[in-house]
């Protein structure tokens, strides 16, 4: 199961715990680490793995490390290609996983809205959006040939509001970054970017200011914008989510890399 440390992954983790309870989760969780995640995410990841006791695999693309690829020096598109898409494919091949669970939801983005719950991948992890298998009822065809894989999205029909309501109902632990707090941020292209470590080069005249912000979605910190918010409890987050006038993906800078960019990334193997 892919584990990105975000809220959807936290829900997936709880569902997996429940599904196999009282036994342990029978498969490992895998985190594709780009090296640019918020520090609080990594701390939360390691603490959660220890607490629950699942097997955690982390993987970072060695080529990316060797060439020093990052979102600031190489741009968001190239960074995502190498450190997420390419890394994911490498990791899946390395471990020979033929079925992978992911926490993607159909309400996130237009091309995701088109994807099956059991999403079939041809050899080389390619998604063929024009030739998806029919998927009737909850009868999932899991037959594949060697080299082919399936990505399974159990949260397909959940909405962002569902996720928050479930987290509240089940008291599921989540990364503190989702709650409002005073954090050092700079304004770039109309978005609040958090200065999580000293790798973020400040431009002329930029000085980090402390603002009360939180995150609706988490990823690589230079590519994930914060929103101004005072929501410090789950109740306040749920209320804010239900009244939101922008989509959660607005804070994801990689989604704006050209029209239909998500579909293209997915075809190439992105989750």
């Amino acid at each position, binding site marked *: 199961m892919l584990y990105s440390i975000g809220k959807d992954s936290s829900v997936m983790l709880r569902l997996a715990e429940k599904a196999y*309870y009282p*036994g342990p989760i029978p498969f490992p969780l895998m985190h594709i680490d780009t090296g640019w995640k918020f520090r609080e995410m990594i701390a939360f990841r390691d603490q959660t793995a220890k607490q629950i006791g699942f097997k955690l695999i982390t993987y970072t693309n060695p080529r990316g490390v060797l060439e020093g690829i990052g979102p600031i020096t190489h741009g968001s598109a190239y960074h995502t290609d190498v450190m997420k898409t390419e890394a994911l494919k490498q990791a899946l091949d390395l471990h020979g996983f033929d079925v992978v669970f992911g926490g993607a939801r159909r309400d996130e983005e237009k091309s995701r*809205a*088109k994807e099956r719950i059991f999403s079939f991948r041809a050899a080389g992890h390619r998604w063929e959006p024009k030739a998806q298998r029919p998927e009737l009822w909850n009868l999932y065809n899991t037959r594949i040939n060697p080299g082919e894989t399936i990505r399974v999205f159990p949260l397909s029909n959940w909405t962002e509001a569902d996720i928050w309501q479930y987290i509240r109902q089940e008291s599921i632990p989540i990364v503190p970054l989702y709650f409002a707090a005073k954090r050092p941020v700079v304004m770039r292209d109309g978005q609040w970017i958090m200065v999580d470590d000293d790798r973020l080069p400040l431009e002329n005249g930029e000085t980090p200011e402390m603002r009360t912000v939180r995150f609706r979605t988490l990823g690589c910190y230079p590519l994930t914008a914060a929103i101004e918010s005072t929501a410090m409890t789950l109740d306040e987050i749920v209320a804010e989510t239900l009244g939101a*006038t922008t989509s959660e993906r607005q804070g994801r800078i990689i989604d704006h890399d050209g*029209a239909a960019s998500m579909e293209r990334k997915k075809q190439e193997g992105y989750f």
Partner: protein
Amino acid sequence: MDTLRFITCGSVDDGKSTLIGRLLFETKLIFEDQLETLKADSMKFGTQGERLDFALLVDGLQAEREQGITIDVAYRFFATPRRRFIVADTPGHEQYTRNMATGASTAEAAVLLIDARKGVLTQTKRHSRIASMLGIRHVALAVNKMDLVGWSQPVFDEIALTYRRFAEDLAFETITAIPISALEGHNIVDLGHAAMPWYEGPSLLLWLETVQTVDRDTARPFTMPVQWVNRPNLDFRGFSGRIASGSVKPGDSVRISPSGVATRIKEIVVWRDPSTEATAGQSVTLVLEDQVDASRGDVIAAASHPVECADQFEADLFWMSEHALLCGRPYAALIHTKSASVTITYIKHRLDINTGAHLAAKTLGLNEIAKVNVSFDRSVPFTSYGENKRLGAFIIIDKLTNETVGAGIIHFALRRSANVHWQALEVTKIARAEMKHQRARCLWFTGLSGSGKSTIANLLEKRLHTKGKHTYILDGDNIRHGLNRDLGFTEADRVENIRRVAEVARLLVDAGLIVIVAFISPYRAERQFARSLFDPGEFIEVFVDTPLEECERRDVKGLYAKARRGELKNFTGIDSVYEPPQSAEIHLQTMGLAPENCADQIVQVLGSEKEIRPPTYPM
């Protein structure tokens, strides 16, 4: 708050995607950043001039936006103070009807769009029949583009009447006709537009908010197909699955199908605190009082209403593959949590999409619907689809391509499966074979015409005969003179040809003989079917591997020359495919090897002490 799952369907360009986009817009469910993207996209791809093209909100694939069509079903989510909605926007093109069926299978209601200028089309009817077959009972007939027919009431009334007449023999409980303009937004959310004062309501959104779908599953007796046996340690053994109907409490008496064993519920496990009750739709792990045996695909049910089992059914089948359905060919199938192998034994009739007439059919093509008899290779617990969708629906999968090719719903079990019992005979196959001092076997020769199958088979039989073995040859040409003389060389007939020969071979092996079958048998699926009739180790596939060029050079019967001249259709290797075995027990590469040596090689394998291991196949 309850959730309504519905689809929008109808023919191409009836305005389905535009309608959904409009619904999202009017219910304020388009976020500001999405609206900005929509504005930009409308300039780039839009078909509405300066105005917003709402279809672009839903058509999420690049190819869809470029072509202005919907290819695959899109799921969107919205809510009003009264209800939450999951809408599946399904494609109108006939080519993508299977994607429409994908959306319809999980929907409770349908918004069927009709272009007011075009009226009821074939594709309108096709979608209606599929929706009805899959159990949708409530339809809003949204007559769209009223602006283009001058908001005319007579036009609307005529379409509504035509549709109601057509739908008389379908299973819809309510049909509500609503005149709309998705483009202008009329009668979508509010009524009272000056253009259609004659229409009194409801608006489409009001219909969606108020349409009464009955949850029949919760009120029915308890059933749960076992998805997984949860056994983390010696102290715990539970049966996990999603409850298909009814509810369950600790202490309830239950019965397991097919074993028929009765016991009680000891505990319902979901998470750390045990549950006191669980109902339809919930995923749970059940711990039973007694140490009973149950596995994936079994069904746990209320003891007062145990679930029936059968292996043959009458079913409706929707075919979703460009490759036609072949009666007698074994396919893989999945019914609730049970995997099985199935064959369609008989097509009772195919449905004429337009008229509903029952047509005779030997095969089924893409997007066709038929009433069929289906035979499972094992007894499966089931209910009719009408009683419970989760226990009465199945999908059919091509064993070779792994594509999902068919979707079926069970009407009832065929009585013959309950009444024709297997007669247990006391003299066994082993006893018969031992009397002949041999092990009964089926040697299945496959290969191109002219590859040497008959020659080698003949030599082999002579060798075995001199060793005192009891043998028999089933030769392709010879059988076609008698038993199979009614069959030709189409794909469907070739499948039936092999099915009959395989059954005869099984009888002869049962009689204790060593049977040599020499048939081209070009398709893997049928050879796998033949194999499935025999016990492990009994069936030995012999691949007589002679290259096509060599067979054609020999051309003993002059058939290749005929086929090349076009005088012989469906000839294997020329205009009909040969699928070579992937792992035959014996692989004879005949080039540079005399037929005598080939026969010796087989005798050697048969005589060797070690067991001949069958290759492993997926299911």
